[in-house]
């Protein structure tokens, strides 16, 4: 029998960076645990469709050098904080000077704060299920720690640009930890971009810890280029009556993988997860979401829409887990998928696991093509077939994009999606 492939030891080389002692210690421990870590294969349930796209070649094991400025890929022209190849670049960042928020790179934390952070790092994630987040924990060289104090309300969105500079082959391990204090409120925009054409891997982890009554809007754009594999994880823990609004928009690549795990830990917590993924050529996109209804009286709403063109492939796996004590849970999951060509593939899998008996749960998943009757209606008014296709395809996802509450992000996203769709029909 062929032995299961394991992570190349090259990935376990000592990582650089200037971390405070407690975080260094944590990283070392995590590294040791990774020796002989089995890599996901076709037989790994949560990597069934994507493992063949995961290419952890030895040349990717090297940490990408950090410290340069944001490249031309920047979609959003706003004051922002830059994380370049996993390291916060203060010279290229605008740190907002606001009451109620503390923003610091991991490197700049004092030992006490770093120690407290080290104890909490990864506590929003199910690490067994998210293999690659474990690699991040062994390799991160820096990170961004955002603390919003209880009761603070941030009026303006906070933009974080996470740039992978693939001027050489290698990997980057960006990490964010956001502590949203009780009854505070903020909007965070994460924009993942890349520059350079060499093969690169970005293995990112973002964690949200929401206190009682906290309110976080999270917008995540995945816009990297075609030489970059991006495997990202987002974890969120919500205490009583906290609310998370998540909007993710992603464009395909050689491999794009996003695991989003939300735990509703106390009564009254609620989340709304909206996601859009599009892909073309031979691109691959994989969204895995998990919502854990741990406590009673929590609500979740999830809507994901995907569009696959050419010979591309999109995976959506949405899991809702309602624990035994989570009575009066309400969960609604909806996933619609559009195939623009016969060569494209979308695999959609809703998973409901319900152990409580007094819950309201609904889920639906559809895979289809553009509606012939709508198309005929539009062309019968003199609109060209290509333009009609574009209008109908944009309409399919616009309903979600229009819900992005930051106008600048919404407009940029719409423009990018329009461009993608026009291109998809030009080449068809």
């Amino acid at each position: 029998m062929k032995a299961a492939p394991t992570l190349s030891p090259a990935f376990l080389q000592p990582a650089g960076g200037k971390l405070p002692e407690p975080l260094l210690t944590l990283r070392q421990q995590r590294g040791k645990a990774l020796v002989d870590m089995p890599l996901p294969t076709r037989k790994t349930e949560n990597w069934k469709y994507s493992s063949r796209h995961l290419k952890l070649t030895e040349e990717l094991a090297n940490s990408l050098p950090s410290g340069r400025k944001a490249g031309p890929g920047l979609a959003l022209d706003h004051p922002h904080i830059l994380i370049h190849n996993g390291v916060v670049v203060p010279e290229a960042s605008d740190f907002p000077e606001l009451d109620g928020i503390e923003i610091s790179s991991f490197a700049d934390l004092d030992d006490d704060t770093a120690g407290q952070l080290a104890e909490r790092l990864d506590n929003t994630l199910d690490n067994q299920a998210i293999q690659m987040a474990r690699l991040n924990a062994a390799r991160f060289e820096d990170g961004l720690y955002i603390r919003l104090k209880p009761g603070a309300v941030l009026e303006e969105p906070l933009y974080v640009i996470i740039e992978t500079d693939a001027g050489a082959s290698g990997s980057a391990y960006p990490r964010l930890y956001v502590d949203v204090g009780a009854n505070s409120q903020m909007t965070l925009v994460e924009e993942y971009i890349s520059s350079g054409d060499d093969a690169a891997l970005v293995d990112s982890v973002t964690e949200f810890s929401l206190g009682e009554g906290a309110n976080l809007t999270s917008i995540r754009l995945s816009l990297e280029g075609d030489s970059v594999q991006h495997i990202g994880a987002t974890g969120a823990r919500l205490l009583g009556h906290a609310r998370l609004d998540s909007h993710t928009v992603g464009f395909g690549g050689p491999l794009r993988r996003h695991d989003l795990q939300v735990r509703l830990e106390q009564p009254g917590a609620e989340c709304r997860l909206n996601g859009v993924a599009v892909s073309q050529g031979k691109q691959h996109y994989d969204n895995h979401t998990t919502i854990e209804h741990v406590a009673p009286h929590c609500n979740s709403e999830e809507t994901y829409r995907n569009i696959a063109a050419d010979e591309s492939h999109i995976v959506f796996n949405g899991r809702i887990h309602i624990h035994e004590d989570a009575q009066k849970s309400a969960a609604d999951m909806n996933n619609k998928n559009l195939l623009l060509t016969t060569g494209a593939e979308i695999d959609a899998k809703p998973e409901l696991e319900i152990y409580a008996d007094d819950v309201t749960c609904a889920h639906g998943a559809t895979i289809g093509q553009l509606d012939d009757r709508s198309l005929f209606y539009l062309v019968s008014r003199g609109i060209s077939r290509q333009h009609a296709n574009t209008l109908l395809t944009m309409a399919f996802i616009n309903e979600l994009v229009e819900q992005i509450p930051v106008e600048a992000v919404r407009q940029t996203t719409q423009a990018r999606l329009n461009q993608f769709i026009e291109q998809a029909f030009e080449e068809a």
Partner: protein
Amino acid sequence: MLSIRNLHAAVEGEEILKGINLDIQPGEVHAIMGPNGSGKSTLSQVLAGNETFEVTSGEVLLDGKNLLELETEERALAGIFLAFQYPVEIPGVSNLQFLRTAVNAHRAHQGKEELSAVDFMKLAKDITQRVDLDASFLKRGVNEGFSGGEKKRNEILQALLLEPRLAILDETDSGLDIDALKTVAQGVNELRSEDRAILMITHYQRLLDHIVPDKVHVLAGGRIVKSGDSELAKELEEHGYAGLGVSDDEEATAN
């Protein structure tokens, strides 16, 4: 202007139209009446270019051009407009965006400059008033959540905006209450002009109380079995299709 010669059409191998002949001159309003299943809607869909229907023989000329060789969008640009019996709802595309795209496609075809968003808005607001629709309908998705009557008025609105050579109204009167019927009829009467023809397809006489046609044709079993002036419609109202020797058996034959 429109000349249909011996038109045969089939859907899934079954012949629905069995030799239609019809001539329409500019400025004329024709009504085609007939029982369900006679082929009325098939005729309108074939003229608009719905590929579900296969033209097996015959010829259709619009201003001397062979219509059957044109794609649906080219027919629209050449001046064919079909007001649908069942307009499609398209959530996510605003009515305004849809109408402006359609108008600008026509303008580009005619070598005119495209209308700016502001200029188009003025035009669209004016025309929504003429069909008694509130301007808020422009912001909604195309036909999304519109009532039956609002959908029909939205069709007439499009005809007024696109100014076709030939407007085909497929059962535009069906499902309307009397007030909605009057509004729609008023819109259709506004459409009438010397260089435009209108072909109304209807099951009932009642629309013809408000819009007096120049010619009336009875379609049955895939053929026009009788033609006359507006008196023919009244005759049908009094005696029914059976009075013409046309029965529901025709429907059975067509099926």
